[in-house]
């Protein structure tokens, strides 16, 4: 029996886990569910020795254990299978399975024994992975790679396997195959922990479901009690804290306007069952909810022209726009505050002034020279308007706090004329004060007639700031909720694949 007892873990600025308990027995499949940020991944990392808890104990067969490293956890028979697989693509399957533990021959020569191929074949057969042990991992499908990871875990004589979102990039058939393997492992007496956002899978597979909410235990349901609704009510059932609220009057004011943005049947992936269509009205702040991997970022990037649009049309203010590159989108007034501020939003070694000027320089000067004075004036004006806390705009943005960096990204676009502002997780890693300021900026823009589409995984935030909420699930628009309809339950229902009601 593997147990976590009263485990706590904090990171700077956030308590990821508080007094969390979890048990899994040999031959049992336990699913762990919760919203984004509920602490599932942190808990799994602690069990697998990736992270050390601040408080609480881990027990294996009633003996207290303490892992100094992933290696130590693996020695004890606990292996985490990562969401993003960690395989050496250039090596073959057998080499990956035994990497770091190759049986050797030839004494000091340290040659690798050819036994790894027969040993690998035995394990692979057990998993139904029918490729050659000499096949290069690079040539395998994602589902096959996952099986290679599992084979590696089995070769370690693992007694507990932890899966973190194993099906997020698998096809339906590969998922079925994986489930068969997991059930087989259960029959062999392996204990399984299974994290998933897909409640349908959870219901189908698990013997028991542990629900986490805001880093605490929020339920432990036996198989017969597990239903979609029971899980959701435990995942979200918290009281709303003091929070930003969009003015009701503003919502009403936008309700009757003619749409300024018409998105029709937009697709970015051949595997999408249908395209995405919606309208946005000027002055509207629309939230976009969904679980990780639901396609929200992909949709925003497609509208911005960074991702290739396979089909569909985008119309802004009555004009069809050809967003085949981001520069077309910017010209048309479609602007994106990207998800990864440090990698996509900012040139981290540039000064605030240079970052703010980047998208506008070409617009300002016909002679294609940098209009240093205008750049300076604009950034000073935006620094004051956005309350970027810095004495001077020559500050390198890499040295600013997360909130101030995000304001610089917003500043880049405020120097242009936005018509549709897309924000992808704009307040992630931003402190409370800066969050409120970012909401204010969004409101301010909306008041000027900009359509604002904000992607967020924070349901409280979505409910607080939106006039309307679009919910995505598996690359589809699962439904639209008006402000009156919107509750955390309603959003999670749609986001986890429950049937739409719109």
């Amino acid at each position, binding site marked *: 029996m593997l147990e976590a007892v009263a485990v706590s873990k904090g990171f700077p600025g956030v308590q990821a886990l508080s007094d969390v308990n979890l048990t899994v027995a040999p031959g049992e499949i336990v699913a762990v569910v919760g919203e984004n940020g509920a602490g599932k991944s942190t808990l799994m990392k602690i069990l697998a020795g990736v992270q050390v808890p601040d408080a609480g104990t881990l027990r294996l067969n009633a003996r207290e254990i303490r892992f100094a490293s992933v290696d130590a956890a693996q020695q004890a028979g606990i292996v985490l299978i990562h969401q993003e697989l960690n395989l050496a693509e250039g090596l073959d399957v057998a080499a990956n399975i035994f990497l770091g533990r190759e049986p050797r021959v030839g004494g000091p020569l340290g040659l690798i024994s050819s036994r790894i191929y027969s040993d690998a074949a035995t394990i692979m057969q057990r998993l139904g992975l029918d490729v050659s042990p000499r096949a290069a991992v690079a040539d395998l499908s994602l589902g096959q790679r996952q099986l290679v990871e599992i084979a590696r875990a089995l070769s370690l004589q693992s007694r507990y396997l932890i899966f973190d979102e194993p099906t997020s990039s698998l096809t339906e058939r590969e998922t079925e195959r994986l489930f068969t393997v997991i059930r087989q492992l259960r029959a062999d007496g392996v204990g399984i922990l299974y994290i998933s956002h897909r409640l349908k899978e959870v219901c189908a597979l698990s013997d028991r479901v542990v629900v986490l909410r805001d880093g605490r235990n929020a339920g432990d349901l036996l198989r017969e009690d597990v239903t979609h609704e029971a899980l959701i009510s435990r995942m979200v059932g918290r009281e709303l804290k003091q929070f930003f609220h969009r003015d009701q009057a503003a919502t009403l004011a936008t309700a009757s306007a003619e749409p300024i943005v018409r998105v029709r049947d937009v697709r970015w992936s051949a595997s999408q069952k249908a395209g995405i269509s919606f309208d946005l009205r000027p002055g509207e702040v629309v939230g976009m909810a969904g679980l990780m991997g639901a396609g929200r970022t992909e949709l925003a990037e497609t509208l*911005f022209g*960074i991702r290739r649009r396979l089909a569909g049309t985008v119309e802004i203010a009555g004009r069809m726009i050809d967003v085949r*590159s*981001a*520069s077309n*989108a*910017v*010209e048309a007034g479609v602007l*994106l505050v*990207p998800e990864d501020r440090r*990698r*996509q*939003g*900012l*040139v*981290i*070694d*540039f*000064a605030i002034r*240079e970052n703010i*000027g*980047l*998208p506008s*320089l*070409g617009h300002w*000067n016909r002679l*294609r*020279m*940098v209009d240093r004075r205008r750049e300076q004036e604009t950034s000073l004006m935006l620094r004051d308007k956005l309350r970027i806390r810095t004495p001077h705009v020559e500050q*390198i943005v890499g040295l600013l706090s997360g909130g101030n960096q995000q304001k610089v990204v917003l500043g*880049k676009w405020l120097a242009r004329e936005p018509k549709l502002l897309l924000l992808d997780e704009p307040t992630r890693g931003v402190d409370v004060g800066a969050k409120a300021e970012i909401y204010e900026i969004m409101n301010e823009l909306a008041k000027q007639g900009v359509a604002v589409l904000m992607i967020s995984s924070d349901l409280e935030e979505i409910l607080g700031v939106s006039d309307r909420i679009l919910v995505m699930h598996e690359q589809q628009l699962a439904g639209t909720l008006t402000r009156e309809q919107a509750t955390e339950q309603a959003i999670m229902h749609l986001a986890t694949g429950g049937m739409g009601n719109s």
Partner: protein
Amino acid sequence: MKKLIGLLLFAIGLYLAVFVKVPEGNDNRTKNNVNMARRMSQLGIVSLGAGTLIIAGGIDLSIGSFMGLCATVLAVGMQRQGWSPPQAIAVVLGMGVVVGLIHGLLVTKLRLPAFIVTLCGLFIYRGLARWWAGDANAGIGPGMFKRAFSEATPLGLPVEFVYLVIAAIVFYLLLQRSIYGRYLYAIGSNELAAKYSGIRVDRYKIFAYVLCSLTAAFYSMMHLAEVASVSPSNVGSMLELYAIAGAVIGGCSLRGGEGNVLGIILGASILTLLQAVVSFWDVPQSLEYAAIGGALLVGAIMDEVLRRRGPATAHG
């Protein structure tokens, strides 16, 4: 700024080291100065092209071979095919544009690594040069071409130096004053962020490859005008390494996004002066490369040590 002053002091030190060894009288010192100014100007111009590309996060290993091909085409064209100098110049500058475009397109559209593309170029252009000249030396006689690119002395200055000044002004305006320059720095620092800012990243990267090849083509004119005869099998060999070294000594980071015009020119001067030091201080000719390499290594180590002592510095 501190870095530029350090480079300047290093260059002055090297110059003095040469100066004390030049025998007095017979205009020896003047001649030597003119000679070094030529070298430095030629290398400076091609380093500006290489440096611009490095700032944008690219690299060109084919500079030397391509320069050799251009010099060969110039000589063969004017000597054997009766091209007029303007015709020959137009052909070679056109080659610069085309080759830069090819490099840039392969790197951006096919996503081939710049290292591979230009390494292949290194072999291809050398081979083409030898084939074009029938594997024989090619040369030009006295005339307008030689005067325009080597012999003229406007205001008493070697004409190459005048070209360097013009190139420095053009590159300064481009890199440090125009939006294209800003885009190149942004692309070199963080290509993704540039893309997410709506900059047409591919277009500007291609532009940087074209600039680099154009400076190599221009170098070939000055070189041929000076030496009058070239051997296609080795003319310009290792020039790419000198050009890259000049840019890097001058503060360009191979990671991209760093460097400036003054630094690049100082870097090229330091390389030129190092060569002069080696020849005036009676270092055996055979040790020339080893001496230059050793001096650069010491410089790089000192730079790194100083950087770790000092606070983190920004680009530019």
